[in-house]
């Protein structure tokens, strides 16, 4: 207890929003930050490989197609993760694989969330005609086999230029995944928004004349944000795996290593006892998904005011 009887007036506190407040708390969580760092490392690895390819740096991962030993060498001190069928280093391939896998997963996730969330919110909030239109779009889209859609998108987008940027096979693929997989999150958000829309706090916001956009983005979004976070972290992993199927269909990056392709190759190698390629790719995926999920949880928690503790 303070021994001075004067009430000390601290400078007036600055108003904070849920976001800045959440972020501050997030930053204080050590483990979450470690996970964030892991995610960043993955991302910067991918970025680094882009740069390295652009400037033609001859460093570890970009030399993935160098033969470093015999076919299918077991992991040793020389080749830490062993070699693949051509005697290429699995370690280098795994590192290089970050580029394709992360780009696909990241772009596709962002695209699908960028489309799905607003559409779902609009459909759920306005209901009526606009809802029916959006439901129509996604019903149609999701009834058509996913693979057919992706193939078609990839065919249409392949070798086209958008904004002066040439879409290669892989670009087409992540656009295609993104453009076809927003349905799931759209439906989820629609449902949640329908649920929240009848709450008194939304009525209150309406009663003082908030615009619809403001209600959706300022009031409803923070309350459904946990769904977006978890959807993102699940989606991200799913897309890394989806790339397996796509490379299976010849749509992915087939010429360069990606985790998907490594797993796909390893599938037949596994029964001959070549486990390291599969293990390397799986662990690579595991680490980033773990980091992403823990970070996502932490983010979710820090945006949950009821968990506002030190």
């Amino acid at each position: 207890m303070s021994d001075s009887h004067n009430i000390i007036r601290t400078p007036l506190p600055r108003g904070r929003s849920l976001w800045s407040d959440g972020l501050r708390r997030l930053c204080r969580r050590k483990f979450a930050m470690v996970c964030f760092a892991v995610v960043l490392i993955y991302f910067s690895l991918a970025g680094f490989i882009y740069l390295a390819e652009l400037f033609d740096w001859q460093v570890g991962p970009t030399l993935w197609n160098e033969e470093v030993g015999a076919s299918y060498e077991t992991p040793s001190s020389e080749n830490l993760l062993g070699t693949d069928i051509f005697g290429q280093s699995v370690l280098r391939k795994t590192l290089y694989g970050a580029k394709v896998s992360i780009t696909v997963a990241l772009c596709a996730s962002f695209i699908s969330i960028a489309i799905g969330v607003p559409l779902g919110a609009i459909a759920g909030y306005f209901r009526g005609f606009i809802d029916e239109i959006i439901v129509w779009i996604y019903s149609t889209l999701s009834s058509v086999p996913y693979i057919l859609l992706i193939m078609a998108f990839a065919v249409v987008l392949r070798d086209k230029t958008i904004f002066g940027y040439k879409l290669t096979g892989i670009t087409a693929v992540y656009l295609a995944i993104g453009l076809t997989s927003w349905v799931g999150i759209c439906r989820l958000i629609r449902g949640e928004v329908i649920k929240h829309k009848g709450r008194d706090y939304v009525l209150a916001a309406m009663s003082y004349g908030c615009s619809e956009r403001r209600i959706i983005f300022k009031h409803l979004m923070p309350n459904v944000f946990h769904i977006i976070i978890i959807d993102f972290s699940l989606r991200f992993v799913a897309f890394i795996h989806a790339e397996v199927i796509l490379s299976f269909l010849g749509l992915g990056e087939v010429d360069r290593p990606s985790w998907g392709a490594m797993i796909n190759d390893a599938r037949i190698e596994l029964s001959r006892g070549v486990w390291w390629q599969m293990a390397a790719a799986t662990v690579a995926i595991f680490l980033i998904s773990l980091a992403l999920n823990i970070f996502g949880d932490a983010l979710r928690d820090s945006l949950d005011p009821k968990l506002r503790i030190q």
Partner: protein
Amino acid sequence: MTAYIIRRLLYTIPIVFGVLLLTFVLFTLIGGDISLEIAGKGATQETIDDIRREYGLNKPLFLAWDSQFINHFKSALTFDFGRSRDRELIIDKIKRGVGPSLALTVPMFFCVVIISVSLALVVAFVRGSVWDTLAVFICVAGMSIPYLSFILFGQYFLAYKWGIFPVFFSPDLTMAQYVALPVLIGIVAGLGGNLRFYRTVMLDEMRSDYVRTAFAKGLNTRRVLFKHVLKNAMIPIITRVVLAIPFLFLGSLLLERFFGIPGLGHMMIEAIGSRDYFVINAMTYISAILFVLFNLITDICYSLVDPRISLE
């Protein structure tokens, strides 16, 4: 309400139309001319043209009474999908495959939902504890390990090495026997992601005031979780569950392949791979109808689980 249902059912028409149109457009985009394959090796262009004519592939795509699109539309409306490329009636094909597909996906799906929802409730309740952290690790591992590894390991160890299950389909096994292992694998592989999702959903409800009231009544934790929290968290669960149901009939590609289950999952991929437009069209059409139906059910369920939601 009845009016609402009728209106929503009428609404199937534009969706089905949209789906038919979309599949058709996609298909023309992807291309794949079946006449080449039918012509056989050493065929001349003339033969190929003949075959195209026989298949009606030389007709205009749209914008004519006799166009290919109109013909497909007609066939869909009459549920007369014709024959697949291997000359089986498509309707028979679907009837044949739907049983095994459902036998595989339905138990798998419902087990996954029930287990993951229950575990999610528990895990969300003990949020932040060791159990919670452990669950994150296991779930993420489950999500990261490729589906294929589960299958290969399951088949090798559980079936071959330890002989708990049959390795593969065989006509003298009952459906329950040969479906057991794939279902188990499907459950294990599917649990991670679902559990993670449902946990988040539950967390949002876990600290509401009505939960406090329920505890104040002296209810035990299980009841609070499985009655009060669960029903409030139902909206996203319904969204995720009900709308996945129409696709159960499409089966599961990999499991079907590895365990020889003659389901539709494989059939679909095959149809796409061999550009069997007739089959794709039929399956898409059926899933569209189911999807619309379950969409309606979803919306009705919304208003059933949450009385504050009105349908109109």
